[in-house]
C-alpha cells in the first residue's frame, strides 16, 4: 500500500486550469496584437489585409487634427501628472507621518473618492459645475480639462506615494535630527529623496491615466478641444480606417514604455 499524503490545495492542479489560463491570455492579447498588425495594413479596410506599409502612420502624422489632439493630450497629461502628484505627495505626508487619528479611514476614502464614484457621475458633475463657471467668467480654455484630469488622477498618484512613505523607517528622520538637521533639512535631505521613486511612479501612473481618459474629457471639453482618445472616438462614428489602429498602437507603445519605467522605479531594491 502506498503512503497517502494530504496535498495542499493547488489551483494549478485543477482540471482545465491550463485551458482556462490560455483562453484568458488569448482574450487579453489577440485583439491587441491584431490591432497592432492591422496598423501596418496598406489597404483602406480595418478587416482586409492589403500588405505591409507605414501608410497610416504617415497619414496620422500629417493630419493636423491628430497633431493638435496629440499636443493637447500631452499638455493635459503632463499638467495633470504634475498637479496630481504634488497634491498626492502633500496628502500622503499628511496622512502617514503621524499617529493614527480619528477618521483616518474616512480621510483615505475621501482622497480615493474618484476610484469609487462611477466616472460618468463625476463627468456629469464636472460638466454642470464648469458650465456655471464658464458662464460667469467667459473662460473656455484648457484649464477645465487640466483641473478635471488632475482631480481624478490624485488617487492614482496617492497610492504609490503612500506605500513608499509607509515603508519608510521613521528612525531615519530621527537619525537626521540627531545629526543636527533641522526639520526642513531632514525633509529635504532624507524624506524627499527617499519618497522620490514613489512620486515619480505616481506621476507616471497619472500621466497614463490622463492620456487615456475619454468619459470625463468628452463631457468637460469645449468645442475644438479634442484629445487623442476623443478624436478617435469621433472617427469611429464615420468610416473607420487603419489610422485609428496606427494612433492606438502609438499610444500603446508610449503606455508600455511608461509602465515599464513605473515598475522599474517601484521595484524594491536590494
Amino acid at each position: 500500500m502506498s503512503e497517502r499524503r494530504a496535498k495542499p490545495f493547488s489551483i494549478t492542479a485543477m482540471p482545465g486550469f491550463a485551458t482556462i489560463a490560455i483562453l484568458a491570455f488569448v482574450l487579453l492579447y489577440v485583439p491587441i496584437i491584431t490591432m497592432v498588425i492591422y496598423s501596418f495594413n496598406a489597404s483602406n479596410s480595418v478587416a482586409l489585409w492589403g500588405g505591409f506599409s507605414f501608410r497610416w502612420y504617415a497619414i496620422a502624422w500629417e493630419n493636423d487634427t491628430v497633431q493638435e489632439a496629440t499636443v493637447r493630450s500631452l499638455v493635459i497629461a503632463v499638467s495633470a501628472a504634475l498637479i496630481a502628484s504634488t497634491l498626492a505627495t502633500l496628502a500622503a505626508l499628511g496622512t502617514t507621518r503621524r499617529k493614527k487619528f480619528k477618521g483616518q479611514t474616512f480621510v483615505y476614502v475621501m482622497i480615493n473618492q474618484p476610484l469609487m464614484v462611477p466616472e460618468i457621475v463625476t463627468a456629469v458633475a464636472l460638466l454642470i459645475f464648469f458650465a456655471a463657471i464658464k458662464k460667469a467668467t467667459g473662460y473656455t480654455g484648457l484649464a477645465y480639462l487640466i483641473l478635471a484630469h488632475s482631480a481624478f488622477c490624485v488617487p492614482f498618484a496617492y497610492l504609490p506615494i503612500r506605500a513608499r512613505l509607509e515603508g519608510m523607517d521613521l528612525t531615519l528622520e530621527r537619525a537626521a535630527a540627531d545629526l543636527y538637521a533641522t526639520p526642513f533639512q531632514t525633509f529635504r535631505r532624507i524624506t524627499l529623496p527617499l519618497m522620490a521613486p514613489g512620486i515619480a511612479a505616481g506621476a507616471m501612473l497619472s500621466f497614463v491615466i490622463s492620456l487615456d481618459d475619454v468619459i470625463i474629457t468628452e463631457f468637460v471639453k469645449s468645442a475644438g478641444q479634442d484629445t487623442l482618445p476623443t478624436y478617435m472616438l469621433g472617427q469611429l462614428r464615420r468610416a473607420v480606417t487603419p489610422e485609428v489602429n496606427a494612433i492606438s498602437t502609438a499610444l500603446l507603445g508610449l503606455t508600455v514604455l511608461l509602465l515599464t519605467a513605473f515598475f522599474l522605479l517601484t521595484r524594491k531594491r536590494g
Partner: protein
Amino acid sequence: MTTDTAVEAVNAARHYGQGQYAVKALDDVSLSIRKGEFFTLLGPSGCGKTTLLRLIAGFETPTSGQILLSGKDITAIPPNRRRVNTVFQSYALFPHLSVARNIAFGLEMLGRPKSEIAPRVTDMLRLVQLDQMAERKPAMLSGGQQQRVALARALAPEPEVLLLDEPLSALDLKLRKEMQLELKRLQTETGITFVFVTHDQEEALTMSDRIGVMKAGKLQQVGGPREIYNGPVNRFVADFIGETNFLTGTAAGDTVRIATGETLAVPGAGQGPVTLAIRPEQIRIADDGPLTATLTQTVYFGTDTHCHLRLGDGTDLVARLQSPPSGDVGLSAGQTLRLAPVPGSVQVLEEG
C-alpha cells in the same frame, strides 16, 4: 556647576497615559554621568533604559525633571541642537547616501566647510577600518560593517556624548565580542563620553567604567562592574548580574543562621531576617565547611563544571568548580558534600 559631569538627569520621569492608568516608563531617576566615561544602562526590556536614552537624545521630553548636558539644562532643546549623537539599534543609515556621505551628514548639517569635512570623513573611515567602502551604499555592506558606519557617522561631529542603543544586539556572537573590544578602543581613543544601553550583563561588565542597573523605571544601583558584581545592593541586581545563589536566614551580629539551622560567618550581617547571595564560583567543597548538601547533578561546561546541590531544607544551590585536566571532577550524583563559601564572598541584600 561641576564641569566634570557630561550628562545629568535630575528627577527625570516619563509617563505614558494619564492618571491611574499612567505607565511610568521612567520613575524619578537622578543620575550623573562623568565626562569621558563608558557608562552602561543595564536592565531587562521595559526597565526604562531606552526611555532615558531618548530623553538624553531629545527624542522625548520628560514628564517632569530635567536633563543637563555639561551642566546646562537642555530639557527643552530639540535633538538637532544637542551636541549628542546616537548609534541606533537598527543603525538607521541613510540608504540613498554613500558611506562617506552618511558619515559627512552631521558635519554638513553643522555647516562645516568642505575643506574640513573631507579629511574628517577619511579619518573616521580609517578609525572604523572601512577605507575601501567609502563609495558603497549601506545596503551593500554586512551587518558588522553597517554597525561601524553608524559608529563613524555618530562620532564624526565629535559629540559631547555618544548614545548607543543596544547596537550589538543584531550581530552574531563572534562579531559581538569583536565589536565590544572595538567600542572600548574607540571610546578610549576619542575620549568621548559613551552612554551604552544593553540588557546583556556580560557586555556591561566587560566594557563599562560604571554601570547603572535599572528595573521598572527606577535606577537600582550605580557603580563599577566589580562593585556591582561583588556588592549588589538587592536581590534583583544580584540575580540580573551573573548567576547567584540565594539563602534566607536570621542575622545575629557577625553570623547568619540559615533556614537549615546551619550557621554561616558573615561579618557585619546585622540583626533580623536577611537574604544572602553567594556566587557559584565562590563555593568550595571543604570537609570542614558549614553547609551540608546532596549533589543532584553535575553539568560539564568545558572550563567549568556546574554542581547542582540541594541543602537540608530543599534549597537548591549551584557551585561552579574549575574542571580538572581530566574533565572529570570526580563527584557523583547522590553524594553528600560539605560546602564552604570563600571568606568575604557572602553578600547581605536588601529586599528588592
